[in-house]
């Protein structure tokens, strides 16, 4: 599209939102259609694919034996990585993770970690020496806005789908045994992201909304309705009132979305 057409459309999006409407017909706090498919990659210990409108994210879980962190010798290790793979958007470049993919991974990580979604103590094999490492790899396949919510949802969906191998310790070595047990999951953190446009908060912004938003606010809540992670992004600002309002909406929306997960 020519840049004039783009600007006219952007103005239209902003004016509609000022009136409480959205170009695609959604209400300000409506999500696009959400599809969650768990168990899409047989070779991974767990996996899920989430469609949020045309935004598509795949998450695969791999589990390995490794060393615990020195300050948590009795706990397994959680590692979240996000790849904005270049086939997902003309704006994604091949290469090492940039600040956007690092922020995405860290926001997803924070939701899982702070809600204590995984019972990491159950992932200890030998205290101080051997624990399970859970690799959560977020793979963005098509970018049409709101990558955080899609990625966080795909991550917890994949974790709920994850099977750990059974093992026994033989002479200090871990021997893998037949059979699997599910990964011990306690909570299902859900991220809900707001864009501020025309001084209003809209939920689940699509790409063209993100391009004109002043700022972004993500609130992650757990099954008990507690907040476990927040991230403000973008070069704008929020009022105190907007922040508190967002927290309430996030809690409600998360409850709805949580129903889409098979446990």
């Amino acid at each position, binding site marked *: 599209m020519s840049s004039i057409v783009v600007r006219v459309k952007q103005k239209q999006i902003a004016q509609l939102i000022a009136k409480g409407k959205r170009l695609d017909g959604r209400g300000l706090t409506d999500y696009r259609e959400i599809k969650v498919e768990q168990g899409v990659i047989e070779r991974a210990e767990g996996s899920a694919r989430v469609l949020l409108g045309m935004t598509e994210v795949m998450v695969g879980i*791999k589990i390995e034996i490794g060393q615990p962190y020195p300050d948590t010798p009795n706990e397994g290790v959680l590692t979240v990585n996000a790849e904005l*793979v*270049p086939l*997902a958007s*003309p704006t994604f470049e091949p290469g090492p993770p940039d600040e956007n993919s690092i922020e995405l991974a860290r926001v997803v990580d924070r939701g899982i970690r702070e809600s204590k979604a995984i019972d990491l103590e159950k992932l200890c094999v030998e205290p101080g020496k051997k624990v399970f490492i859970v690799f959560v790899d977020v*793979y963005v*396949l098509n970018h049409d806005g709101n990558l955080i919510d899609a990625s966080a949802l795909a991550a917890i969906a994949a974790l709920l789908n994850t099977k750990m191998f059974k093992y026994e310790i033989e002479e200090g070595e871990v021997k893998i045994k037949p059979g699997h047990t599910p990964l011990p999951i306690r909570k299902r953190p859900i991220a809900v992201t707001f864009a501020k446009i025309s001084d209003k908060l809209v939920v689940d912004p699509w790409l063209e909304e993100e391009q004109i938003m002043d700022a972004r606010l993500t609130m992650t809540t757990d099954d008990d309705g507690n907040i476990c992670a927040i991230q403000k992004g973008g070069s704008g600002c929020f009022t105190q009132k907007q922040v508190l309002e967002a927290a309430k909406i996030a809690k409600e929306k998360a409850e709805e979305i949580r129903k889409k997960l098979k446990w």
Partner: protein
Amino acid sequence: MSQKLEKLIDKKGLRLDGRKLDELRSIKIEVGALSNADGSAYIQQGKNKILAAVYGPKELHPKHLALPDRMVLRCRYHMAPFSVQERKSPAPSRREIELSKVIREALEPSIFIEYYPRTSIDLFIEVLQADGGTRCASITAASLALADAGIPMRDLVASCAAGKVDDTIVLDLMDTEDKVGTADVPVALMPNLNAITLLQMDGILTLEEFEKAVNLALEGCRKIYTMQKETLKAKYIGVKEVEE
């Protein structure tokens, strides 16, 4: 090509997954799966799950890399960390860099690169699950993604491997056959032009076995070509749901 041998072909001449010696794995192809790319395709071949996307032709940055008389084709073959048994680091491995090169060189002969001087096409391939023969399946999908992007092409490129398993030449090796077998010969072909655009081999073959393997692989390519054409037809003629 380096593990201890076990029986991969039974007395009836059937393979671990029940296939005959010259039988392809089940293949599912979709074109136009990704909304942002200019062209895209998805292939399942056995348990391989691979996405290919094309962006371009577009102006090349940095400009001094542009060529005055032709387009530059760039290709990245990449495996998702969860696509294989042991988690793969997302940084490109030496294997991925080599495969990016041979895949690009397998597809380049099919494109009228002189039609778009000073531009580039970016081809991105993501292996979401790997099950042996990913380079061939990637070429098959990538050629469709190029067609889906409307790039003018001499022919589609279809790709398939043959190899040696239990002293027998078989078609389209899956993961276990690839690892336990003793030779693998990936081939890519422009069937209408009878032009081989990819040929690699590792393992050990006599000249006679090699000839047999190449011929079998070429047959496989021709079967895959038929599927490629049907997929395109289904999208562009049958369904007519195109135009944005």
